[in-house]
């Protein structure tokens, strides 16, 4: 699918930006840092996510001096045209319309407009805590299967309930009602585990392939769940009973998807961890490209892919190889601080300066 046109009003430093006839393929967004090129990608991400991939608060999204920011745009794909209009007030909830009807559930938009965003923060998916990789897997689930979002929120809630029960229990032995929460944790935890396994499997092979193409050696992407084996729910209950004493002593839940990880291992003369930021960054981008390919396999067309500053951390060889891998992926927006960083061949180039966009090329 592709964004056909997009309009930003009072969105960060863009007073009014309107772009029409955006083509399929690579779209280059060039501008120095702070001029508003990332903002353009962020605004396009809003059309699918109804949220910023960079921040969870709305205040910085509204241009200084304005009260509200607006992003509108039309996406074309195999399901036809989709008009998304987003109103971002300085304070309060983001409101959106899908084909001029109010959006009640975010997943309704996610089903129509699939967006994959990779930015510098993604380095922490590779180098940071397991929680960030779990968040990546859950984002992959929401992107691949928007209607399954409830599985994630249901697990979060049962975990909070069970943790509260453990935390507040002052008596001896097991708190009353514990078995009921064990059963809920096991059933919802097993569902989430299966979904994360499916998401990891859907993106792993392509992430590894893309990595090998850029780095020249292998990347292993493997889901490492807290509970494994079949029947999964029974294994869950077994593990919970094994850890019962520990849980009562530490007053928190020690078994479940909130302790999963996604293992990322480089294989070059044996397994090793990441040797440089550049290498880790290639892995981070390739995880997102793996997700984009998984989405294409799932829905029959590539998502809108947004890569914020993918080239600057790379040496020229890897830069060229990554750029080669970006063709035939549907519409891919790539931002760069310097034109020189970008290999030739983009059909459209958008030059961004002080929140204004000028179009060059096709």
């Amino acid at each position, binding site marked *: 699918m592709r964004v056909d046109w997009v309009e930003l009003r009072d969105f960060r430093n863009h007073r009014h930006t309107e772009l029409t006839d955006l083509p399929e393929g690579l779209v280059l967004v060039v501008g120095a840092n702070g001029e508003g090129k990332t903002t353009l990608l962020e605004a396009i991400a809003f059309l699918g996510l109804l949220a910023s991939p960079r921040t969870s608060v709305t205040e910085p999204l509204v241009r200084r001096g304005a009260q509200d920011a607006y992003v509108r745009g039309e996406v074309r794909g195999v399901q036809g045209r989709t008009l998304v209009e987003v109103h971002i007030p300085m304070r309060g909830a983001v409101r959106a319309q899908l084909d001029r009807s109010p959006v009640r559930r975010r997943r309704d938009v996610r089903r129509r407009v699939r967006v994959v965003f990779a930015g510098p923060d993604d380095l922490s998916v590779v180098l940071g805590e397991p929680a960030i990789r779990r968040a990546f897997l859950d984002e992959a689930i929401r992107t691949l299967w928007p209607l399954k979002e*409830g599985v994630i929120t*249901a697990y979060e809630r049962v975990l909070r*309930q*069970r943790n509260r029960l453990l935390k507040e229990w002052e008596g001896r032995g097991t708190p009353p*009602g514990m*078995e*009921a*929460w064990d059963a*809920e944790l096991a059933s919802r935890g097993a569902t989430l585990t299966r979904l994360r396994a499916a998401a990891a499997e859907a993106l792993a092979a392509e992430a590894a392939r893309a990595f090998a193409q850029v780095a020249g050696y292998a990347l292993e992407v493997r889901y490492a769940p807290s509970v494994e084996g079949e029947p999964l729910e029974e294994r869950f209950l077994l593990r919970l009973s094994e850890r019962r004493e520990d849980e009562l002593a530490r007053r928190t839940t020690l078994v479940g998807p909130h302790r999963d990880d996604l293992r990322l291992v480089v294989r070059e003369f044996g397994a090793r961890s990441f040797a440089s930021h550049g290498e880790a960054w290639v892995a981070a981008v390739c995880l997102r490209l793996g997700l984009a390919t998984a989405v294409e396999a799932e829905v029959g067309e590539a998502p809108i892919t947004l890569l914020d500053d993918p080239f600057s951390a790379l040496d020229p060889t890897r830069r060229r190889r990554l750029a080669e891998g970006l063709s035939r992926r549907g519409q891919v927006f790539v931002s760069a601080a310097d034109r020189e960083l970008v290999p030739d061949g983009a059909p459209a180039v958008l030059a961004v300066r002080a929140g204004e966009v000028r179009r060059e090329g096709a």
Partner: protein
Amino acid sequence: MYEGPIQDLIDELSRLPGIGPKSAQRLAFHLVKAPPEEAKRLAEAILAAKERISFCVECGNVAEGERCRICRDPGRDPTVLCVVEEPKDAATIEKAGVIKGRYHVLGGAISPLDGIGPEDLRVQELLERVERDHVAEVIIATNPNLEGNATAMYVAGLLKPLGVRVTRLASGLPVGGDLEYADEVTLSQALEGRREM
């Protein structure tokens, strides 16, 4: 912040469940601006309800007097109990006319996050009733959400050793939802398809 009676009214209204400060303010000004009869009718209805309505000593549902209409009705099978969270759930199911037995209102669902444990629900009363009335089947109709499920599981765990048949309303009810929003057809299908726990 306002002064005197209007602020008192806002304060009282905002203590009601589901009423935030803004709604309380809106309601208060609505009442003050309305004709005096309207405010009087509301005040009287609240007082009358408070004086005349109590909770049934058997099932915990709202009642006029010691026992509710259903517990007083000899035509209702005392050996089948339908367990619900709140009186409004009993009312929803009763309207659908699918239960030939009686109800048992727990008074909520287990939810540690809200500070509600099993001891805060009318569970002991349920166990006593089941033994005393030789109850043959308990149909658990707690809400089809996380807390409702956990409550159902907890109650079933206590009932099964008593040798009573325990069933749960079938899914098909809006998942994660509220019994309140289920229509009659859905409810009777959910009862037909109830499963053993």
